[in-house]
């Protein structure tokens, strides 16, 4: 039944041997050393300042949506950095390996990366950037902001929220593990069948890719359930649907897409897994397999996934622009309608990823027209933003610059997308770097929105603004890098460079390749400014401290509570009276009115269960990757046992009393997100943390 794979296998260690560790490769050794140093820079201070307990109690076992969101974003930023390094390596390889006379280093015939290593790098670049960088960051932003925007105390299912986080983290850890133990997939982030089948990819690379995505996508699905249930069921009184902030709307639509499309990815990967482990013939060449079925299933998920990522980005732009234009968003209803139109159309366009399959003129026409239809609601959005900007009182803070920059990228990416939607054009440029340049514009628009959002909402979470000066330098260098790199890439696409080349034969491409390399160099410079922005902001945090409304012109509910947000979000649930609630309160001079009295409320306890499930899920994934059956089996049974055990545990949570709340709210300094609750108890701030008895809870 089980597929026989070449190479040694032992019951105890599966396929894992000492030779699996690529200690002879200097690049990987360097990466390993870098990771160790980076890891030590975190671990040593934690040990030195005796913060292990704090980290465990307040973060690793937390069920607080804001802390979970922060961890999502940190995970995403780290993965984004690794994805960026991959991108840098791809660019450098291509500029070094152009033409037959190009030199080879480190065992490569041309450039410095042998083909199988280069293939792993572009595969991990795509996988990391899409699944483990952008997705977690946007999920994290939704986690932090949505409950605040709708006036809720937490998500609908706080513990499941933590499970989602740890499953996503497990996926990222598996990709990281593949760097040092074994190898990664060489079949691209989409996993081209039948290249992903055992005869063509016998190593563990594809398995790493497969289980990393599979496990993290379970986390994403759970998070989608949580978000939808939160938005539907946890809105503050008066938060009617026509008053919902746009970011919440887009998060809702994006999670509807996530909920419904990720299972299809699950099927595609499960069937591929069945091929690789059980010897079935879903996507094999011959024996009745159909490799285009994989492509089909993958893109049924893959295209909605694109909108899964871009819709929250649109939501962010729709929040940032009105704040810094000091005007309400133009066309609220059309914006919501456009969001859901995009979400709906996203389910009818997936074949445009494989027009060249040759399903014929009828099929191609249908999907071509459907793809072009996306342009209509997107155009509505762009005009809404432009009309919001029109005659606004514009303040070009760093978040605003990112938001406006995103509009330019949307325009370039969107129009090239319209070109690609025409099958006749697609047949010519498909698989060329023109396509790459197109979708990098789109993904960069998402990255721009992410940077806008981090700058915009950072003060809400931490209580101080990011440094404007270095933040703007970050924007300008990043944008210059984008322009230099991707204009050259569009040109190379027209010149006929196909994607994923480790060796380029045409020396006439050299000038454009050098331009691309300069672009990536400017990107590297922008990384410096990003780090500087964080450093300067934290150093000067006292100077940049803000009140509840960090920008003075914000419009939505999240700016009503303190910055930084206390663990209970709102001392008293706000009553929502209108759409842009905060603007309305400003207009009526009641923005500063605090609640007159406090009441007891209930909070969930932290729990170690999600972390435990995460650790076991890693064991499950790692065991399956290396075919260590006992490890995978034990982990799976243990996960089931933990879930059953948890269903028997009666954890009623605790009560924060009105007196405690009065003390916390009356303090000079708002409660920081990194404050230890134990510390607060010692100060006498939390006077009565009464745990409910089971009888009270039920």
């Amino acid at each position, binding site marked *: 039944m089980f597929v026989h794979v070449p190479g040694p296998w032992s019951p105890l260690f599966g396929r894992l041997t000492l030779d699996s560790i690529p200690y002879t490769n200097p690049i990987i050794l360097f990466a390993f050393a870098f990771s160790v140093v980076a890891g030590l820079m975190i671990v040593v201070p934690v040990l030195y300042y005796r913060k292990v307990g704090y980290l465990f109690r307040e973060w690793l076992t937390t069920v607080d949506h804001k802390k979970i969101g922060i961890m999502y974003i940190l995970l995403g930023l780290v993965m984004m950095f690794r994805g960026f390094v991959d991108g840098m390596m791809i660019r450098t390889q291509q500029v070094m390996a152009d033409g037959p006379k190009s030199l080879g280093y480190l065992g490569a015939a041309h450039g410095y990366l042998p083909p199988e290593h280069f293939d792993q790098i572009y595969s991990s670049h795509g996988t990391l950037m899409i699944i483990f960088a952008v997705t977690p960051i946007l999920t994290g932003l939704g986690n932090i902001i949505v409950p605040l925007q709708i006036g809720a105390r937490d998500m609908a299912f706080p513990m499941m929220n933590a499970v989602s986080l740890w499953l996503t983290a497990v996926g990222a850890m598996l990709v990281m593990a593949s760097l040092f133990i074994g190898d990664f997939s060489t079949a691209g982030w989409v996993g081209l069948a039948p290249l992903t089948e055992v005869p063509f990819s016998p190593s563990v690379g594809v398995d790493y890719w497969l289980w990393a995505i599979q496990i993290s996508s379970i986390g994403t699905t759970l998070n989608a359930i949580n978000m939808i249930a939160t938005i539907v069921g946890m809105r503050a009184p008066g938060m009617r649907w026509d008053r919902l902030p746009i970011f919440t709307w887009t998060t809702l639509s994006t999670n509807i897409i996530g909920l419904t499309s990720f299972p299809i990815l699950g099927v595609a990967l499960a069937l591929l897994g069945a091929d690789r482990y059980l010897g079935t013939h879903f996507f094999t060449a011959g*024996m009745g397999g159909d490799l285009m079925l994989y492509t089909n299933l993958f893109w049924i998920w893959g295209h909605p996934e694109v909108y899964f990522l871009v819709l929250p980005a649109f939501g962010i732009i729709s929040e940032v622009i009105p704040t810094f234009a000091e005007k309400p968003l133009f066309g609220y209803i059309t914006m919501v309608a456009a969001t859901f139109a995009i979400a*709906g159309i996203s*389910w*009818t366009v997936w074949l445009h990823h494989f027009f060249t*399959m*040759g399903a*014929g003129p009828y*099929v191609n026409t249908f999907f071509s027209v459907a793809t072009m239809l996306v342009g209509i609601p997107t155009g509505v959005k762009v005009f809404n933003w432009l009309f919001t900007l029109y005659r606004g009182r514009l303040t070009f803070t760093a978040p605003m610059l990112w938001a406006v920059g995103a509009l330019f990228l949307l325009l370039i990416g969107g129009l090239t997308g319209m070109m690609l939607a025409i099958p006749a054009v697609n047949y010519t440029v498909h698989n060329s770097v023109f396509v790459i340049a197109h979708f990098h514009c789109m993904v960069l628009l998402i990255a721009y929105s992410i940077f806008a959002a981090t700058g915009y909402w950072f003060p809400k979470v931490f209580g101080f603004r990011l440094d404007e000066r270095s933040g703007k330098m970050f924007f300008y260098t990043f944008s210059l890098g984008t322009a230099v790199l991707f204009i050259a890439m569009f040109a190379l696409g027209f010149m006929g460079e196909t994607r994923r080349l480790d060796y380029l034969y045409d020396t006439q491409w050299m000038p454009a390749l050098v331009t691309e390399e300069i672009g990536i160099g400017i990107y590297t410079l922008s990384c410096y400014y990003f780090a500087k922005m964080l450093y300067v902001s934290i150093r000067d945090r006292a100077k940049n401290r803000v009140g509840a409304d960090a920008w003075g012109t914000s419009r939505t509910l999240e700016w009503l509570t303190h910055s930084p947000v206390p663990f209970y979000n709102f001392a008293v649930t706000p009553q929502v009276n209108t759409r842009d609630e905060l603007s309305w309160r400003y207009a009526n001079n009641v923005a500063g009115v605090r609640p007159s009295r406090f009441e007891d409320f209930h909070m969930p306890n932290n729990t170690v269960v999600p972390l435990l499930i995460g650790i076991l899920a890693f064991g499950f994934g790692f065991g399956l990757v290396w075919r260590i059956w006992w490890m995978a089996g034990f982990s799976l049974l243990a996960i089931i046992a933990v879930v059953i055990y948890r269903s028997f545990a009666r954890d009623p949570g605790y009560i924060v009393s009105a007196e405690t709340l009065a003390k916390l709210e009356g303090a000079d300094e708002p409660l920081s997100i990194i404050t230890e609750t134990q510390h607060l108890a010692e100060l006498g701030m939390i006077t009565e943390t009464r745990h409910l008895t089971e009888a009270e*809870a039920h």
Partner: protein
Amino acid sequence: MAAHHSDPVLHPEVQQASFTGYTVGFVMSLLLLLAALLLTEQHALPPLKLLGAISALAMVALFAQCFLFFGLNIALHNIWKSVSLVLTVPLFILTIGLTVWMFHQLADLTMLPGMQVMPGMPGMTMQPTLLQ
């Protein structure tokens, strides 16, 4: 945390359980499936029409289950379940329908005529691939 004081058994979703509804749902599903079985066993219609007929019977059974088993309606505690299902049903149709359509067209265009294996042909050992 709510329901401190209210008995969970009095919750509307518990109270929506209905002996009659479940019995009708059970009998209906069974009869519809038996009818489909009978049609297929008798080969009562030409293949394509038969497929249409049994699909219709299945759809009726699923529809009945939505109301009689899941108890979907527009009551306050069920409205979001109904709404989310109505929003999801088009996705089932798109996923399966468009896939079947595109692969059907693909097969028409790329499979060489005469190389198709006859269903039920005994002693077939050839392994057809696109290359042959």
